[in-house]
């Protein structure tokens, strides 16, 4: 039998590199084969495997708008061997790309509903694509709440982007930092402390979140306490990924393969697993 080879990357080129913060950067990519670029399509919340020549692959979520088919944006934090190497790429440099992979955000379920999008740390990237998708179809959705928490005020990036989002009708942007600075204009404390300012109907809302698992557990706890059904709460999970096809076994979270069953899960699918340390 002849099969497509799901492990083979496509050649891609860096169009632009944007330094977002001291450790965070965005690579704006295009596939070098114009036909492959034209055929490339993804859904908000999906990810690509980026390959750095001679070093290896890493799973990175796609932050660009799915309707902007000509560019594929990835916002990356330099922490490991591959990401430190990717940080050194400049416009015109080449890399490999496989994807998209995984199950993204429930954009269908979210239609017509209020939205609460909660992100923590530098974890906003996996929902940026969903936010852009929703705000481009503003009339298809109810009230939109965007809540972003960072550890330190200095970690906050994309201020322009949040300002732009906040300018949309029926859209609320709430920001918090665990540790503030003298001129920090927003809340100092946890994101959950901002929840009394949310404008949403818990019985008719879709919750999306990503960030540290401790934060996501706390957000889920508070949302359940507000009578949001567990099936309306969605989380983007992270685990080690080598193959992205469900074969290599590294990304398992209990019986789930995060790469193919996720990375986006509804809370009822993984609630019990989130309570266990060391999974």
């Amino acid at each position, binding site marked *: *039998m*002849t*099969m*497509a*080879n*799901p*492990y*083979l*990357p*496509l*050649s891609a080129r860096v169009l632009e590199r944007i330094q977002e913060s001291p450790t965070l950067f965005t690579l704006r990519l295009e596939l*070098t084969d114009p036909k492959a670029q034209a055929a490339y399509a993804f859904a908000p919340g999906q990810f690509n495997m980026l*390959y750095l*020549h*001679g*070093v*290896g*692959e890493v799973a990175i979520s796609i932050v660009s708008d799915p309707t902007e088919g000509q560019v594929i944006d990835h916002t990356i934090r330099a*922490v*490991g061997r591959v990401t430190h190497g990717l940080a050194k790429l400049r416009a*015109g*440099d*080449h*890399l*490999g790309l496989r994807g998209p992979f995984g199950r993204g955000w429930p954009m269908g379920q979210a239609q017509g509903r209020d939205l609460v999008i909660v992100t923590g740390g530098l974890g906003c990237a996996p929902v940026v694509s969903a936010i852009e998708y929703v705000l481009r179809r503003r009339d298809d959705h109810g009230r939109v709440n965007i809540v972003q928490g960072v550890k330190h005020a200095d970690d906050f990036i994309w201020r322009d982007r949040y300002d732009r989002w906040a300018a949309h009708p029926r859209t609320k942007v709430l920001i918090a930092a665990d540790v503030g600075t003298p001129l920090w204009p927003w809340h100092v404390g946890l994101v959950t402390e901002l929840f009394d300012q949310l404008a949403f109907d818990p019985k008719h809302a879709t919750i999306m979140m990503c960030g540290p698992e401790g934060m996501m557990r706390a957000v889920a706890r508070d949302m359940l306490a507000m009578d949001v059904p567990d099936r309306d709460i969605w989380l983007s999970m*992270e*685990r*080690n990924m*080598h*193959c992205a*096809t*469900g*074969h*290599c*076994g*590294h990304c*398992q979270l*209990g*019986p*789930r*393969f995060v790469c*193919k069953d996720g990375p986006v899960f509804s809370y009822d699918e993984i609630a*019990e697993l989130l309570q*266990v*340390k*060391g*999974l």
Partner: protein
Amino acid sequence: MDEPNQFLPRAGLQTLIDRLNHAFDRCLGPVVLDGIVQMRPLSRVEQLPAGHHDHQAPGSYRMTRDDGTRQFDWANGPQALKPLLFTPEEPLWRVDRDDTGRLAFTPHNPMRQRTAVIGARACDLAALRLQDQHFLHGEHPDPYYGARRDGLFLVAVDCSHPTDTCFCASSGDGPGCGDGADIVLTELDDGFLLRGTSDPGRAMAASLGLAAATTAQRQAGRERIVAAAAQQRALPDADLSAVLFARQDHPQWARIADRCLACGNCTAVCPTCFCHRSQEDPVLGGSHSEHLRLWDSCFSPGHAYLHGAHLRESIRDRYRQWLTHKFGGWVTQYGRSGCTGCGRCISWCPVGIDVTAELAALTEATK
């Protein structure tokens, strides 16, 4: 078992080996090498381990020999089919970088060697069916595994000599062979019951021109399999998936971790363990690089690496991952347990950890 049985006299086994060597690129079969049963190129019937018997126990594998003539009076060796299809190390693709930095990716063609294997066991067939599900039946079929699987022809042999570590009767996978073979043999004292169990297998069987087995021969074969099902070791009679996921904080996990070395022997010999990692092998000048995959183990420290940390830092967490996945996660992922009762993880564990005993401890009513 419904396929009509023919009788292959012991002297006729050489003909079958010859036919397989002729019809396929290679024929592998069990030979005793370095004190263990290994699958090696087989051309002469004398290479088969006549009179050899394995004696396995927790942390122990020994072979003895007597003057018996039966060639399959042993249970298994440390490996059977897994390394033939899901290879321990394999280059997947190569990338070339030209002077301008452009990258060109070229897939390696999987070696399309057509392989016949004599001597697969019921536990091996069950494991093969699971590996097929994992590598071939998902959204992204694996072309490397698939190419070798296409060219595989299996002559399985019903097990008549389960060893102390075997529990295939309890897992429901043996000792008689289930689906997946092309030909199944049952060894009798003077020859074999033989039945084709696939179209190519039936064609091969027909080409041998054998007589139908007698009622007495078929009866003898059935008795062998019934006798082999009498095994000492068994899995606890419990919903293991539910129990294991509910008892992630059971104190037994720490007691296992006191003994477990996290060496990964169990995952290496397990016929269903599928974890692997990717690795780059670049040339010094940077002009090209090979992208490899290698067997990995959930016991290796880097298995659950994320953002500079290890999510399963302790041996307790890693053993719990292995056992909970094998007997729990598999049920969700593939509709059944990932254990086929071969007992290899018990024999090849250097400290003799016995999964059936650990599962019994974990399923006891009181913690």
